[in-house]
C-alpha cells in the first residue's frame, strides 16, 4: 500500500459528518433494507410454508404426545436432542468468532461480524426450542424455575444458554446503534419511529463513540468464556452420565471445537448467500472466504484430532460395554452415518481447504455445506448409538425418526433462514460504520501498529 493512499485515505470519521449527507458510498449496504424485490417475498413464502409444516408437526405432537415420534425405550432421545446440540453449536458462529476477530484486531472482520452475530442470536432460540419440543410436559416448563436442582447438568445448560442469549443479544445490538441511527435519518413514518427508538439518541458524538467502543470491547471479552461454557455444559449433559460412549472427559472441549467448526461453516454459507442475493461482491470478497476457509481448515484438523483421540482411547481400553457402541459406529448399523460424518467433516473439507486454488468462494461453500451435514450427523452418532446399546444386555433397540421429527427439523431450519432474511430487511447485514471506520481511521492505525512492532529503520529498505 502506497504512502499516498494511506494519507489520502484519511476519510473523516463517521462522527465528523452528518448522517443525512451520507455520501453515495456504501449505498449498496442500505439497499437491501430500503428496497425489497419480489424475490424476497417468493423466498419468504417458501420458507414460511416449510416452517408451517414444522409447526403443524409440533401441534400434532402436542395433541397426541411424544408417541408420534419414533422414540422408544431405550432410545429415549433422538432428533430433537441432536438438533439441540447442533443448533447451539451453530450459535458459536457468531459471537465467538466475531469477538475473537475483534480482539485480534483482524481488519478483514469488518464486513462479516454482523452476519455472524445475527446467526448466534437467532439460532439460540431454535436450540432452546429443541429442548422444549423434546419435553414430555412442556406445560410444566416453569418447574425448572420453581423446583430447579443445580445438581442436574440440565440446569447448568439453562443457566449458561440464558447467559449466552443475553450476552449475544447485547453484543449484536451494540454495534447496530450507529447503523440504526443512519437508517433513522433516512426513513420516514413508522420505520423512522422504529429506528429512532432503537438508535437510543445516537448522534455520533466523540463521547458516545468512546462509550460504544468501550462497551463493545468489554462485551467481546465477556462473550468468549460464556460461549465456551455453553457448549461445555451441553456436552456435560452426556458426559456426566455413565452411559457407554458418553462418559468421556474430552467431551467438553470436543463439543466446543465441533461447535466452532459448524459455526464457521454456517457463517461461510450465510455470507455467501448475502453476497450473491444482495450483490455485495465489493464488501464480501474472495479474500474473506479464503480467510474464513483457513479458519475452517484449522477447525477441520482440530475436529479430526479430537475425534481420533476419543475413538482411539476407547478402542485401546476395549471395555466391552464401550466397544459395543464403538463397533456399532465403525462397522455396525451406525456405520453409514459415522463414515458419512468422517467424509463430510474431514475428507472433503480438508481436500478443498488445504489447497489454495480450491479455497475459493465456491470451494468454501461446498466445504461448509459438507461440514454442516457432517456435524449434524456427528451429534446424531453421539446421541443415538449410545442409547441403542444400554449397559444391561437383553434390551432390544431400534429407532427411526418419524415424519413429525423430520418436519420439525426442516421447520426449524426454514424458520431460522426466514428470520435471518427478515433481519437483513430491517438492519444492514454488513456493518456500515465499521466498514467506514476500516476505510478511514483504521488504515492509519494499522500502519502505526505495524510500525510499532519493528525497530526504527530506513523505510522501504530490503
Amino acid at each position, binding site marked *: 500500500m502506497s504512502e499516498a493512499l494511506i494519507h489520502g485515505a484519511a476519510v473523516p470519521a463517521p462522527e465528523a459528518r452528518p448522517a443525512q449527507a451520507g455520501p453515495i458510498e456504501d449505498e449498496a449496504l442500505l439497499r437491501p433494507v430500503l428496497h425489497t424485490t419480489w424475490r424476497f417475498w417468493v423466498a419468504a413464502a417458501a420458507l414460511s410454508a416449510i416452517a408451517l409444516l414444522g409447526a403443524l408437526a409440533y401441534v400434532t405432537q402436542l395433541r*397426541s*404426545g*411424544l*408417541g408420534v*415420534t419414533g*422414540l*422408544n*425405550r*431405550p*432410545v*429415549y*432421545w433422538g432428533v430433537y436432542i441432536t438438533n439441540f446440540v447442533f443448533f447451539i453449536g451453530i450459535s458459536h458462529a457468531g459471537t465467538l468468532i466475531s469477538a475473537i476477530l475483534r480482539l485480534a484486531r483482524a481488519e478483514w472482520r469488518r464486513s462479516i461480524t454482523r452476519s455472524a452475530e445475527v446467526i448466534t442470536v437467532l439460532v439460540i432460540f431454535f436450540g432452546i426450542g429443541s*429442548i422444549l419440543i*423434546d*419435553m*414430555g*410436559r*412442556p406445560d*410444566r*416448563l416453569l*418447574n*425448572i424455575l*420453581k*423446583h*430447579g*436442582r443445580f*445438581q*442436574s*447438568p*440440565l*440446569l447448568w445448560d*439453562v443457566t449458561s444458554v440464558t447467559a449466552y442469549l443475553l450476552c449475544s443479544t447485547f453484543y449484536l445490538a451494540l454495534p447496530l446503534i450507529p447503523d440504526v441511527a443512519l437508517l433513522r435519518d433516512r426513513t420516514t413514518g413508522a420505520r423512522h419511529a422504529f429506528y429512532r427508538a432503537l438508535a437510543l439518541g445516537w448522534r455520533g458524538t466523540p463521547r458516545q463513540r468512546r462509550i460504544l467502543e468501550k462497551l463493545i470491547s468489554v462485551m467481546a471479552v465477556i462473550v468468549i468464556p460464556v460461549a465456551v461454557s455453553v457448549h461445555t455444559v451441553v456436552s456435560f*449433559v452426556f458426559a*456426566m*452420565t*455413565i*452411559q457407554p460412549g458418553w462418559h468421556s472427559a474430552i467431551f467438553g472441549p470436543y463439543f466446543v471445537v465441533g461447535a466452532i467448526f459448524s459455526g464457521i461453516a454456517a457463517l461461510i454459507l450465510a455470507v455467501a448467500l448475502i453476497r450473491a442475493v444482495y450483490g455485495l461482491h465489493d464488501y464480501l470478497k474472495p479474500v474473506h472466504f479464503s480467510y474464513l476457509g483457513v479458519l475452517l481448515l484449522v477447525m477441520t484438523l482440530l475436529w479430526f484430532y479430537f475425534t481420533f483421540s476419543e475413538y482411539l482411547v476407547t478402542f485401546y481400553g476395549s471395555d466391552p460395554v464401550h466397544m459395543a457402541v464403538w463397533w456399532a459406529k465403525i462397522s455396525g448399523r451406525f456405520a453409514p452415518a459415522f463414515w458419512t460424518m468422517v467424509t463430510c467433516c474431514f475428507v472433503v473439507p480438508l481436500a478443498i481447504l488445504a489447497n489454495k486454488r480450491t479455497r475459493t468462494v465456491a470451494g468454501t461453500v461446498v466445504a461448509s455445506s459438507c461440514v454442516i451435514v457432517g456435524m449434524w450427523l456427528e451429534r446424531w452418532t453421539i446421541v443415538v448409538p449410545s*442409547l441403542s446399546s*444400554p*449397559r*444391561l*444386555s*437383553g*434390551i*432390544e*433397540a*431400534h429407532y427411526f425418526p418419524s415424519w413429525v421429527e423430520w418436519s420439525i427439523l426442516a421447520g426449524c431450519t426454514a424458520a431460522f433462514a426466514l428470520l435471518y432474511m427478515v433481519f437483513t430487511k430491517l438492519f444492514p447485514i454488513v456493518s456500515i460504520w465499521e466498514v467506514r471506520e476500516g476505510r478511514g481511521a483504521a488504515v492509519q492505525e494499522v500502519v502505526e501498529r505495524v510500525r510499532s512492532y519493528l525497530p526504527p529503520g530506513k523505510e522501504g529498505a530490503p
Partner: protein
Amino acid sequence: MAERGVRWGMVIDLDRCTACQACVTACQSENNVPPPDPRGAAELRSIRWMDLVPQLEGEYPRLKLRLLPRPCMHCDNPPCIKVCPVGATSIGEDGIVAQVYSRCIGCRYCTTACPYTVRYFNWREPSWPGDLAESLNPDVSVRPKGVVEKCTFCHHRLQKARDRAALEKRELRPDDYVPACVEACPANAIAFGNLNDPHAEVAALAHSPRAYRLLEDLGTEPKVYYLREGQ
C-alpha cells in the same frame, strides 16, 4: 419415625424362579400399568415395571438363556436422581426411589442416565382395553402422557401398612408390607424386607455366597440382589 434405619430390599433366587411371569402380571394390575398391546410392543414402548430380561451366556453350543426378573434396583446411589432437573425423583429415608408424576417435566434425562433402563416413559395417554379400566387399583395414581414412571416397590402398600400399624398402635411388622410381585410369586423366589434387620430373611440371603447385584462395579449400590443358579 418408627422405622429408623430401614432399607427396603429384595432378593430374587434364580434357582427358584421359573420365569412364569406371575410377578410381571401382578405388578401390572397392582400398579395400573396398561397391558401391553402388539403396537406398543412393536414400537418398543410397552411399560413393564417388573420385566423378564433375557440374558445370554456363553457361546454356541454351550449357550445358556436366562430370564432375569428385573424391577427397579432402588440404588442407594441412584444415577437417575442426580440428573433430574426438577427433583421429580428422590430417595426416601427407607431407601425407596420415588417418582413424583405431577412434577416430572418429561425430559427423559433420568431414563437415559439409568444404567439398568428401568425407567419408562408415557409416550401416549394410557388406555385400557374393554372394561379393564374399571378394575384399576384406587391406591395407585394413573400416570398421564408425557411423564416418567417406574417400579416403586409398591410404595402405596407400605403407606397402607404404616397407617394400619398406627391405627393398631403398634410397630410395623416385617410381614406387614410386601410388593405385589413378591406376593404373587408361586415359586417363592422373591424375598423382600429390611436389609438392615439382621433377623430378616432378606438380609441373610443378601449375604449368601450366591448373592450378586446387576452391574455391581458401577457403584450404584442396588438394593435388589440375585441368587445365582446352582450348578
